């Protein structure tokens, strides 16, 4: 990756065939707080660490997991402000789809649109790629789905995935623990245990965020009290 001569213009390929800015963007993602998602038989759970820079920060004002549509939610690893821009664009895409077809947007279609936006920013002049990877969790007519979208604009469907700081340990842990017939509650427990693996300090309902979507097709973020209940079950 020492093609420093080619790392100024992101629209130029380096001799090794890479777009160096995308590599750097992935590094930014890799140093972000850990987030993960697990697809269960009857729903999807996404979770992330919520480490705040100081105890003076009002943690209830920070929301890392966002709802894109009533049945699709998203979490990120990387740069928060970039995430907010993508969420805004996704809201608009989803609403435009609904205005035209009077139907909720299917998960794959929304993921495709977000990925197209992220790809645009790797091929336009004067812009930089987004410094986030997203985990999109949704439940539509094709059942529960979990997608990861990278700064390059490529997207993958996962049964379980992790991103950010502790990614390799988290993925190993998930590989061992994942089963195809997992229920949503089991998936929440597994996601808490996975976060615990790389967590510095005492885990609590206030320093992690969990979002779930079940067969009711309603995405919601768990309250700190609900997270405490799950934490108690895991102990």
């Amino acid at each position, binding site marked *: 990756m020492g093609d420093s001569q080619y790392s100024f213009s992101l629209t130029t390929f380096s001799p090794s065939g890479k777009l160096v800015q995308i590599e750097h963007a992935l590094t930014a993602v890799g140093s972000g707080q850990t987030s993960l998602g697990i697809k269960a038989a009857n729903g999807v759970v996404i979770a992330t660490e919520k480490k705040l820079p100081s105890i003076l920060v009002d943690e209830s004002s920070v929301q890392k997991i966002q709802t894109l549509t009533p049945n699709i939610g998203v979490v990120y690893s990387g740069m928060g402000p970039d995430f907010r821009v993508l969420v805004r664009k996704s809201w608009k895409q989803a609403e435009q789809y609904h205005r*035209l077809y*009077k*139907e909720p947007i299917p998960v794959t279609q929304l993921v495709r649109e977000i990925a197209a936006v992220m790809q645009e920013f790797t091929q336009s002049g004067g812009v930089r790629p987004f410094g986030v990877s997203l985990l999109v969790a949704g439940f539509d007519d094709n059942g529960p789905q979990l997608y990861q979208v990278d700064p390059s604009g490529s997207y993958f469907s996962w049964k379980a995935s992790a991103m950010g700081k502790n990614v390799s340990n988290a993925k190993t842990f998930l590989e061992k623990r994942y089963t195809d017939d997992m229920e949503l509650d089991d998936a929440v427990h597994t996601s808490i245990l996975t976060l615990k693996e790389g967590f510095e300090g005492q885990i609590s309902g206030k320093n992690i965020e969990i979002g779930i979507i079940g067969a009711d097709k309603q995405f919601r973020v768990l309250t700190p009290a609900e997270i405490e209940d799950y934490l108690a079950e895991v102990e």
Partner: protein
Amino acid sequence: MSIFEYNGSALIAMVGKNCFAIASDRRLGVQLQTIATDFQRIYKIHDRLFLGLSGLATDAQTLYQRLVFRHKLYQLREERVMKPETFASMVSALLYEKRFGPYFCQPVIAGLGDEDKPFICTMDSIGAKELAKDFVVTGTASESLYGACEAMFKPDMEAEELFETISQALLSSVDRDCLSGWGGHVYVVTPTEVKERILKGRMD
């Protein structure tokens, strides 16, 4: 003379028991002169969705082409065909885009939705949707069509009886309208098959 009466047309869609029928006349005229007696007004979007377009023939043809284009792209992107309700919402949105320079057409949409439930609707030329549980009509003969359908319609008819009813309603109504007629074109759609039939009525 109204632009909607330039070419002449008559369209009905009717709901039956797990089936629907859509029928049109076959005349294409230029005001008083008859140009064609085999004009197609009903188009298949996919096996379980049909679209009828009444009004100005050129706009009907162009609108059909645009809608088929949109549906084909939808099918490629989403790897499924459109549900009738979704298609109707899309037609309504497309028509409203041209609010101040509209297509001079009135569409009739008929399809089988989820669980083989029949769906019909019509809209005006700027996209005001009208869903109905029994029948919808448009065209120059619409007033006669409303009367005939109201009198002859029964709920939950089977495919054969539905065919008889819609055909009688169509033929008797176009006989009272000089701009539509020259036979009929009827599609009866059930979950298993599509039956297309040509009617011979008063050929004038």
